[in-house]
């Protein structure tokens, strides 16, 4: 039962992923990515990581996909919904991707102890995770906040069309 359910979820993650990397319509590709991420979130839930599943839905599907669609919309010169994403060098890329998959699968195969049955679910999911984040890895957590600040400032600096006007510069053209 559980195995079948996992198979279904896996298919739900893989097929949209395939469409996301193959589809010609850029907006659709972003949406398919969202679908694949949703399916992954379901897998997380199945694995007992319900908090993470929630974060995934909120941050990724709610935030990142929306941002991406904004990005697509902002960078279209002509009005129109269809933004095409052409693909090139498909044979080469397929060969590399398939090799990579085969290699990783082979490594998984050659590694012992991966067929172990589920252990008991991680106890007190939310609080244990919270403890891990802000107690055990507090320094990384702090660094992360600085990183997000830098990323936001950086994104604004890059995306700003031109620098804010300056009264003096208008008087003295350089």
């Amino acid at each position, binding site marked *: 039962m559980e195995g079948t359910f996992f198979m279904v979820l896996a298919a739900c993650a893989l097929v949209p992923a395939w469409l996301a990397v193959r589809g010609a319509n850029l907006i659709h590709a972003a949406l398919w990515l969202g679908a694949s991420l949703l399916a992954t979130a379901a897998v997380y839930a199945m694995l007992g990581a319900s908090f993470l599943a929630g974060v995934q839905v909120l941050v990724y599907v709610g935030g990142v996909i929306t941002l991406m669609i904004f990005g697509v919309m902002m960078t279209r010169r002509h009005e129109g919904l269809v933004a095409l994403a052409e693909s*090139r*060098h498909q044979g*080469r890329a397929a060969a*590399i991707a398939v*090799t*990579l998959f085969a*290699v*990783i699968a*082979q*490594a998984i195969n*050659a590694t012992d102890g991966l067929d172990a049955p589920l252990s008991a679910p991680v106890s007190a999911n939310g609080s244990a995770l919270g403890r891990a984040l802000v107690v055990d890895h507090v320094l990384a957590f702090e660094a992360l906040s600085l990183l997000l600040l830098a990323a936001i400032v950086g994104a604004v600096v890059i995306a700003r069309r031109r620098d804010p006007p300056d009264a003096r510069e208008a008087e003295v053209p350089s």
Partner: protein
Amino acid sequence: MSPASSFALVAVLAPALAALVLAALPALRRQGTPAAMLCIAGSLGAFGAALAALSRLAHTHTPETWSRPWLQAAGLSLADVGVRVDGTSAPMLVVVTLVALCVQVFSLGYMHGESREAFGRYFAYHALFLFSMNVLVVSPNLLQLFAGWELVGVTSYLLIGFYYRKPEAAHAAVKAFWVTRFADMGLLFGLLALFTASGSFGWEAQLSPAVATFVTLMLFLAVVGKSAQFPLHIWLPNAMEGPTPVSALLHAATMVAAGVFLVVRAAPLFAQSETTRAVMLVTGSVTALFAACLALVQTDIKKVLAYSTCSQLGYMVAALGAGSVFGGFFHLTTHAFFKALLFLAAGSVIHAVHSNEIGKMGGLARRMPLTGGAFIIGALALAGVPGLAGFFSKDLVLEAVEGKLGSLPWIALLATAFLTAFYMGRVVFVAFFGAPANDHAAHAKEHGWSMRGPLVLLATLSVVVGYFGGDLAHLGGHAYHFHFTGGAALASGLGLAGIGLAYAVYGRGPREAPAIIATVDRIAQSRAVNRFYEFGFRRVTLVAADALAWIDRYVVDGLINMTGYVTLALGSRARKIQTGEAPDYVLAVMLGVVAMAAWVVVQ
């Protein structure tokens, strides 16, 4: 710190100070003459200090080392920096500083036509070069020697490429630097292996036979490059593109001698490997003979001297290979003086007739008696005429080589002695006797005292220095007594014969030949000699020379012109990889990842 080491330290630092001042004060450097004076003062100080160190050493007879830890790791000193004054370094220091001083004084006159700025730059390079060379000479270990060695390479690049507007000079500078640098890899490998095996950079280490052979062979590779041994001698003739005094400096006592000096320094290591010494003996003899053959056919006076330098370095290397450390060192010392003399005299001549071609000279002995006399003394010393410096040291070399490896090296070196006398005689007779070839030669004049003084000094030394062999040996703790052996007699005889033959072929001019010369001439013109010449010289030597020239042109020069070739050949391929398109960059990353991942699975 004892007096001798402090003197040696002064000898190292005086030129460094001059170079530093000239580097820090561009305004002074651009003045020209004051810069030159500063540089000469530095060299004079260095020479005085070197002399003082030598006399201290002669007095005390105890080698001294002053050093400070340089490379430390975990409280353990990997190497020291400092000065070592002993029977090898002190005389060498005197020779180097004296020759450098002579060359610099000579340059005052020779380079007078240069712009002030170039004049100052020239002397700044000189000061830097002397510093580098002195660092090498006084080093208490092989690491400092390596440091000086590399610095000498860089500064020689600047000196050879001094006339950088001439493409040949720029090319020659790169070539000299790169060929020697290529060989320097050997020195680095040797040092790495030595350190790994013995835990220090000292030259007294006792190594296992295999390691000793590896280390010394690697060191010898560096010697082959620096001391222009066959087949890496190719850079030396090109290096004649530099100003003639530079050639005198680089190719007499300093840069090329550094290789031989390295072997003398590291003699305890070389003593441990029979194989390396055999290789050295063969390389040295081949170089000596081969370069002498090539010198025969040169018409450029500096090229003759360049090949002659190669040939004489072959002598030294052969002596060292035969196990006679002192023989090699002694020949290095005497050669330094007479070769510097020859180059400077040649420079004086070139300056007067505005040409390097001996065919465009002629009759100069009358027009420039002092220069002519100096050149002739130098040539006689080089030819090994008894009583002059070269005679004593050459004799020692031949004595050492005699009987080794079935006497083949000995025969080669004897033949070289003959050829040496012949080609030097040729230059002397063509350039200094007979009728002037053109107006320049006819109106050549002696130059000022700045150019004549060094000639006189070096000529005197070329005569007398041979008699100090015993003292030099004593200083270094070697046993040496001069005795006139059959080999020495044979060599001097061959030398005289070579001069005679040269006279027969080139020296007669319009006059009638004396009977003996006519006989020699008849023999020289005979079919047997002709056939021997045809086969031995034209077929073998020149074919070898041609083959080497081909390699030189297409391989070495090719490598040196690599920038161009690479732009064409490698560049186009590189452009295929580095397409400038970001997706391809990502592709490279993923290919790397897949390759690594696949390797894990295959493992």
